[in-house]
């Protein structure tokens, strides 16, 4: 889960979800799938509808079939499964470019076109690095360093990249 916003609320939210995940593992003897965690996060956020977690989240992971999924949230738990998303102060700079590169065709088109843009792991990582480099140029709050968490069938690995330090 990647979160932007008020860091204290982000930490509290992460702590809460980690605790709930541990309970799930004790009760069900397995890890939570991404869609399950997506629903849990939504419910957790809406629970505090009238005193929200000031946290804008993007959840990424693998579903039960091993396919990648991305869920995007607002601060009170409204969520949607999408192919790509961004949140935070840099999101206005990043989203149009992602739309341009990845946008699925309209479901109203005939003949019906597949909505999933096939994106290889290396292409996806490259795209992430490009958009963050661009966002760091123009957004004063974005920069310093980038952490990319890559989740695939082999497990989880982290990649780091330096960004503009101003």
């Amino acid at each position, binding site marked *: 889960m990647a979160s932007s916003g008020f860091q204290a609320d982000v930490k509290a939210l992460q702590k809460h979800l980690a605790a709930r995940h541990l309970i799930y593992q004790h009760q069900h003897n397995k890890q939570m799938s991404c869609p399950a965690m997506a629903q849990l996060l939504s419910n957790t956020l809406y629970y505090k509808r009238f005193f929200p977690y000031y946290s804008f989240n993007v959840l990424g992971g693998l579903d039960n079939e091993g396919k990648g999924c991305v869920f995007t949230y607002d601060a009170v738990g409204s969520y949607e499964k999408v192919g790509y998303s961004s949140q935070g102060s840099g999101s206005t*700079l*990043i989203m149009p*470019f992602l*739309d*341009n590169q990845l946008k699925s065709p309209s479901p109203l088109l005939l003949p019906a076109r597949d909505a999933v843009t096939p994106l290889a792991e290396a292409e996806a990582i490259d795209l992430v690095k490009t*958009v963050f480099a661009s966002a760091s140029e123009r957004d004063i709050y974005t920069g310093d360093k980038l952490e990319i968490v890559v989740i695939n069938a082999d497990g989880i690995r982290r990649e780091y990249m330096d960004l503009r330090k101003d």
Partner: protein
Amino acid sequence: MSIFEYNGSALVAMVGKNCFAIASDRRLGVQLQTIATDFQRISKIHDRVFLGLSGLGTDAQTLYQRLVFRHKLYQLREERDMKPETFANLVSALLYEKRFGPYFCQPVIAGLGDEDKPFICTMDSIGAKELAKDFVVAGTASEFLYGACESMFKEDMEPEELFETVSQALLSSVDRDCLSGWGGHVYVVTPTEVKERILKGRMD
């Protein structure tokens, strides 16, 4: 709602190799209602200087009329066209005259200066100039345009490639902004010709 977001606008100017492109959206709205889908935001001052005005539509039209008037006077006195740098200074001065009751516009000026060197600049509503070597943006879609242009811009693009880049950046950005869109208007200017093209995008 801010007065700058009353009509909705998107403007971008980009520098290429001995050429520049200036582009705008075509929507004129009154808050959430769309009034016109063919609104001209970019005007030609002379063959080598173009002016785009984002922000409040009425102020954009009035400011344009005042600037055309001043430029025609300049042409009569100096017997030549204004350089883009000079024109930018004129716009800045006119805007600052109204420092405590401003025009609610953000201009984008693009032109070919001496030795056909492309010149672009933007300013805020009270005339603070911002020169740039690569691109400038203005309007309600400006944040989106910053991101799209920053990712897509390359140095020294030829006019055809510059047109493609500006068009893609503009269309992707206005698709994210509800107050701008309904197509695009792109001018690509080289020392020899001016190419004006209309883009068809999402009409919503």
